[in-house]
């Protein structure tokens, strides 16, 4: 398998794009993975599901702007370099 660093970058970008697409109120709340319905009752360990929910929410918040930049750059390079 000819893996280059660029293919790793592409894969990571697509995965993060996939996470960023999950809309809060249209999808996550319906499934039960919304951040406003959190189970957390100030217990010591949050549990796997709430960790995942927190992770998704934080990725969406943090990566919103960098994703725009990275996507633009990637599209640009794909158009030019084929």
């Amino acid at each position, binding site marked *: *398998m000819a893996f280059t660093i660029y293919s790793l970058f592409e894969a990571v970008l697509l995965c993060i794009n996939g996470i960023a697409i999950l809309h809060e109120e249209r999808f996550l709340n319906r499934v039960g993975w919304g951040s406003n319905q959190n189970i957390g009752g100030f217990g*010591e360990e949050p549990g796997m599901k709430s960790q995942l929910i927190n992770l998704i929410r934080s990725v969406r918040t943090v990566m919103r702007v960098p994703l725009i930049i990275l996507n633009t750059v990637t599209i640009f390079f794909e158009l030019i370099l084929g």
Partner: protein
Amino acid sequence: MDAPAGFRHPSQKQGRSRSAKSHRGGGTAAGGRIQGGPTQLFDDTSTQPPPQPQPDYYDTTGAEPGYDTSVGMATPGSMSNVPYSMNDPMANMAMQYGASLAGQTGEMLEKNVDRFISVSKLKYYFAVDTAYVGKKLALLSFPFTHTNWSIHYNNQDEPVAPRYEINAPDLYIPVMAFVTYLLVAGYVLGTQNRFDPEQLGMQASSGLIWLVIELAIIVLSLYIMNLNTQLRTLDLVAFCGYKYVGMIMILLSGLCFNSLGYYIMLLYMGTCIVFFLMKTLKVLILSEANPHSVVHGRKRGTYILVFIAAMQPLFMYWLTSHLSTFKEKID
């Protein structure tokens, strides 16, 4: 002295020649035979004063251009020496400036790199010596008789340097094993007439990327399962890098004994690394000082332990199978 008699390991051969460089780069000063300063591999003649006869030739050629043949014959010889003596003060100044510039750049680089990776933490992982490397390689090849898998900590609650503690992870062996794996892979490809210098780069980047993917999966799982372990990321890099030692042996035995040797060694090395990782990580993950979440933590910790340990043989197979196609072996 450092390895059991008759135990020749290719990465150890490689490692010894490189150990001087890496020790120079990163070992802590309180070492065994390796000193802190650089080892001179050549005679540094750049700061010596020029040989004596130069000024005489310089004076004569400068003063009388159209002299007789004796001086004329001397000039070609001295011409090559004259620039050396003429530029000597400037060369000295240039060298001093270069040295100070290099010092500044080094400092700036270290400051900038230090923001991303803590270099002193990195140095901890390279504080190894030959005895440790030998014992660790023997442990990786036959971990079944080792009894004490705990790591000693010193007063500041930090693990003791790998030089003194055989169970501590280090990054020297994984780095060396990775490079040796690339070389062995190139050799194996060469015996199958499939070699191409570009292939080496491909193997390198493939290997690195699979390592990154594996690390990302493990770190993500550790985060999601909310296990507060004392495992640092570099520890995980070290543990995931230990399988390269097994992969080298697998490739070599596949080279010598074709398909049977390959599969037998794969099975054996897979078992070894699963055993090794389970014993080592059990100490690090499961017996953490978490009194209140012991019940939950135990189950999840066990799952993640089995998951990490089971991924290793899969990766070992995945990364070596395409190298050992026994169909086109040219004898």
